[in-house]
């Protein structure tokens, strides 16, 4: 069996393991949403699990785990900017929320 074929079979096993993990995390998200009473804790837990699931897809299905350091050059600024954009919207909560300033 050639090296690439062996590598392919190894990857197939990994894909199945990741897929199983994703399904388990989906069920966990469901249970968290049903059982957590505190809404803030619920949102935090659900988004944390979603981030873990997204990381699994990106690392294994999109092969980012096996890519070189170039991935940081492309993705780090994007992710940082995306987070900054969301954080930049947060002050609006002070205007919109029940504790609004004016």
């Amino acid at each position, binding site marked *: 069996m050639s090296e690439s074929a062996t590598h392919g079979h190894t990857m197939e096993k990994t894909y199945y393991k990741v*897929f199983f993990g*994703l*399904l388990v995390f989906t069920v966990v*998200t469901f249970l968290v949403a049903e059982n957590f009473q505190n809404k803030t804790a619920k*949102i935090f837990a659900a988004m944390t699990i979603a981030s873990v699931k997204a990381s699994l897809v990106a690392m294994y299905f*999109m092969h980012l785990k096996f890519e070189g350091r170039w991935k940081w050059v492309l*993705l780090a600024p994007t992710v940082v900017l*995306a987070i900054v954009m969301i954080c930049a*919207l947060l002050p609006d909560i002070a205007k919109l929320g*029940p504790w609004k300033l004016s």
Partner: protein
Amino acid sequence: MSHAMSQHLAEEPVEPSLPISNGKFAMWLFLATEIMFFSAFIGAYIVARIAYGESWPDAHKMHLSAPIGAMNTALLLCSSVSFALGLAAVQQGKQKKGGMFFFVTLVLGLGFVAVKFFLEYMPKYSGYPLNPADPTGPFVSIFPGRVPESFHALGNLWASFYWMTTFFHALHVIGGLYMIAVLWGKCMKGTLTPERSEIAELFGLYWHFVDIVWIFLFPLLYLI
């Protein structure tokens, strides 16, 4: 510029700025813009959700079914692993096996779109399906003859977020389905050889990204 110099420049191999192919570089740049696109929607939704606190309607109140959302999540996750297996097969030169996995991916993706449009979007306009208490038809409308204001895309903030995020995501899924159909066709023709399999890798990056977006949308819209 002299003729000799221009000839020398033309023959000089162009060093890529990153150690990846131009196609992969372009796809990742495109995905970077997509990350920003969906981050704007998701970020604004999170902010509005926190800002409105208890007055923000929950999924049950807005007739969003968590089991239907979970079913769609499962369909996309299955399609992702199926695509990955198809790509692995194609890279090993097994085009028939790859084509079979791409076909499965295509069916699963179509399932996602069908659930979205027929079980989720249509009932919000025409009614809810299969109420055994009402024998008038397969769809039982709770809002007969009109589109309820609560589900108008411009009816309220919740509806605007719901329609914009899910509809744009569904459009991306449909775009991805076209790509997968192309790959399936290539496998059937026998033209997706390991040497030419980069296109499958690039389309796969896009398809998995669409899956990642749904991974965030599902809990945000249906569960919390």
